[in-house]
């Protein structure tokens, strides 16, 4: 087993809205290992997105520890968190979040311009089979194509971790498979630690490990001895 990239201990996140207190995370202990592909499963409100946001440096825990290669993320300043995201993390979202005023190529270049050791945007786009549509604006692309551009944008800086929040949530099954294929390929070829949040339990078998979230805790960690290809996923 590779060494752990992320480690959390008693990770807790409490949201307060007025008098209401919501425990989004309730003492999560976990490790994500280098090069692994993890799937995070669970119903709405089970805490998986909060977990991803905290390890991705978008949010801070209320208590507990979260480390990225021995670096405590919980105590980093805003500026340090920005640098952390810039240098180490790639994000993929359900609604793609492409910049509408930039073409596919430019959306990728947006990130490579500020990264230390990026791949050329063309190469990133080629990895998701989007090199032919580089000059198109988001409005000229289908949902699946937009998501693949978003993945290219996420991986172009050669991040150590790729965090995907419902990457197939807005897509039909066929397009979803194509997107998943792109993600597994990147995980395999680049060795990028990848975490994928999904509602879709059918996806679980493409992962090395599956974390099941319930009520702000990891209820179960399943290790897949036998992984399947995305094309084999029964939707």
């Amino acid at each position, binding site marked *: 087993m590779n060494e752990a990239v992320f480690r959390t201990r008693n990770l807790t996140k409490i949201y307060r809205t007025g008098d209401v207190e919501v425990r989004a995370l309730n003492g999560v202990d976990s490790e994500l290992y280098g090069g692994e592909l993890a799937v995070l499963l669970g119903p709405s409100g089970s805490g998986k997105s909060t977990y991803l946001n905290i390890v991705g440096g978008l949010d801070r825990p209320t208590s507990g520890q979260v480390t990225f290669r021995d670096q405590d993320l919980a105590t980093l300043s805003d500026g340090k968190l920005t640098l952390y995201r810039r240098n180490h993390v790639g994000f993929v979202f359900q609604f793609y979040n492409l910049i*509408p005023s930039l073409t596919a190529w430019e959306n990728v270049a947006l990130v490579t311009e500020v990264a230390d050791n990026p791949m050329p945007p063309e190469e990133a786009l080629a990895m998701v089979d989007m090199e032919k549509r580089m000059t198109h604006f988001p409005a000229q692309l289908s949902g699946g194509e937009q998501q693949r551009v978003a993945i290219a944008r996420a991986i172009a800086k050669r991040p150590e971790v790729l965090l995907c929040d419902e990457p197939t949530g807005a897509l039909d099954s066929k397009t979803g498979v194509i997107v998943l294929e792109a993600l597994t390929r990147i995980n395999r070829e680049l060795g990028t630690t990848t975490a994928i949040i999904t509602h879709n339990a059918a996806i679980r078998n493409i992962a090395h490990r599956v974390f099941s979230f319930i009520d702000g805790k990891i209820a179960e960690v399943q290790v897949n001895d036998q992984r399947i290809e995305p094309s084999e996923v029964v939707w």
Partner: protein
Amino acid sequence: MNMLDRKLVRDFGRLWAQSLAIAMVLACGVATLILSVGAYRSLEETRATFYDRYRFATVFASAVRAPRHLKSRIAGMPGVLSSELRIAEPVLIDVEGMREPASGMAISLPEFRDPAVNRVYLRRGRLPEPERSNEVAIVETFADAHGFEPGDSFEAIFNGRKQRLDIVGVVLSPEYIYAIGPGDMVPDPRRFGIFFMPEKVMSGLFDMEGAFNDVVLTTARDADTRVIIDRLDEVLKPYGGGGAYDREDQISHAFLDAELDQLNAMATVIPPIFLAVAAFLVNMILSRLIALDREQIGLLKALGYRNLTVGMHYAKLVILISLAGVLIGSVTGWWLGRGLTRLYAQFYSFPFLIFRQSVDLYILAGGVSIAAAVAGAAKSIWSSVALPPAVAMRPPAPTTYRNTFVGALQRLGVFSQLSIMAFRHLLRWPVRSFLTMLGTSMSVALLITSLFSYDSIDYMIDAIFFRADRQDATITFSVDRGPQALIAAAAMPGVMRAEPYRMTPVNLRHGHRELRMSLTGVTPDSDLSRVLDLDLHPIATPENGVILSERVASKLKLEPGMTMEVELLERDKRLEEVTVVGVAQSYIGLNAYMHLDALDRLLRDGRQISGARISVDEAMLDELYDVIKSTPVIASIALQGVSRDRFRATIEENITTMSTIYVMLAVIITFGVIYNSARIQLSERARELASLRVFGFTKAEVSSVLIIELALIVLAAQPVGWLIGYGLSWSVMQGLQSDLFRVPLIIYASTYATASLVVIAAAVATVLIVRRRVDHLDLIRVLKTRE
């Protein structure tokens, strides 16, 4: 309260900052409208009431010495309502503690009755008693400048004899609301005093028993004053009379007219700018609000709300914003208007002040503002209700961008993707970007329009005091004198150089056009007072012919080489033909110049001079003043340096006040435009900008997308603003041109720079306020929601 109105109140609460920014811009429009129109009406009403109650004359004339029996002929002229024959003489005043002599005007008051024309308003004390030879009533400005009260006294020089005068009353006269002394460009109450004495005393002092030298008339409303003027000239001709004129040419009246014109120009130029900008801002934020509310609008319609109800809902929001603006503007306008009218009361001498608050003005200002805002919102409101509910409830199609020439910039590889984002966004909404730019340029234009007058006046001061009239003082004799008077003037203590001049009243005619003015004779070697060509280079008066100032030439449609008729008003209206030989630049009054010899030949009475321009050794000033105060023939002395300082101080005071107001107005426009523009961008692009933050762009980098776009708009607005500012300054300047003075349109580079700096500084401050919002973008929430 129904649900829609609750939504309205909450929307208003949520949008308070943007609403306030719009309301402030509208308020500026309303305030300037109420201020300028209100001040205009107050000033006009005050003047009209003062004129009416104190029987201000409509026709004025003077003579050298005319017998009083002409009274019946003058009073009997058709159209004349009443007349007053007076004695009016310029005198020198010697005030204790004041080094230089002051100029004065002594005017007679009839005995045992009020004057029929040009009555005086008694502020304090009483009018002089007929038998008391040393009692006078002085005008309030002069009294205030020296702290005189009834019971105090000062000395005046009558025909070279010094006499102590006891002040018994302080008065105001409709003739001297704007009291400007000889050689001055603005009133200097310290150095120009008007006082009233009993007729009997005056006739004794000036050898005028049974005679008069000044006549004022009121005329019937429908009377033709030109006919009356001609008849009056006819009657007075044998007695050295001529040159009667009507109210239009009366100095105090004409200056007030110029002030009223200026207020009128302000009312027509400035409020429309604010109303237009406000209409644009309303349009901008309402379009965005409706875009955000699109699904709600669809829902409302799906629930059965009618188009009219939905449309009215948004119209009410606009009206609510406008009402806030009208309220703020009305209160500010009322307050500023009162202040301005009070300032007028200080600057001009009115016995009372009618600050007119007309309801119609507020209704007009409010109506126009609300109309402008609703007009700006109309298109957005219409597009919101026009959508079928099913379409409205679906999210709008994503914004499409085109790879226009920004793509070419991209290939240059010079610009970052962040800059490319800003460029594309800017070009995606060209109309909005253009209007934002235009709105910003209005601030620049407004500043230039208010600041340029300083440049023009500075240029005028240089031209008048340092190039044209460089003498230290101008001495005017009570009547024209022979050449020995010049020798005497040159021999006065401290006088280093003395140059003669002669002035005679004329009527210049060319075709059906004519102008009543003075013709001035000067020597060609005049070095103190010079005639300047249009490029401000001195020109020598040629042996023959006349040089006209530009305004005279253009009014009479004359060019060098053409001839005109000169009617000599002091020579039985004898007509002479004279050739125009040149055009001169002159910013004050109407001027025509001739060689002194040529003028002497024209008048056929040998060498006569009206006065002298002198340069003086500073060290000998006291001795000179002493001599002047005791020289009977000197009627007045105008001191260039004092005039210049007074002029500069008055103008600077006015301009400083005005520019403070205009800088505030410009800052409000800039804030209104840039703040709203930034907020809307932020609202439209929150998701994009939050994504950038997620990807690891710093707060500064993310803000730069917004800032680059706004910076481009603000920078593009500068040259456009300069251009519009030049245009507005030009139109304001056209409104200021009169026979009394002309303001050249001069705008220094520093003025353009100042205007731009103020606007850029305001824009930067505004952007910094909005930047804080970029810094506090809620990353997670923005990303989780669908566009």
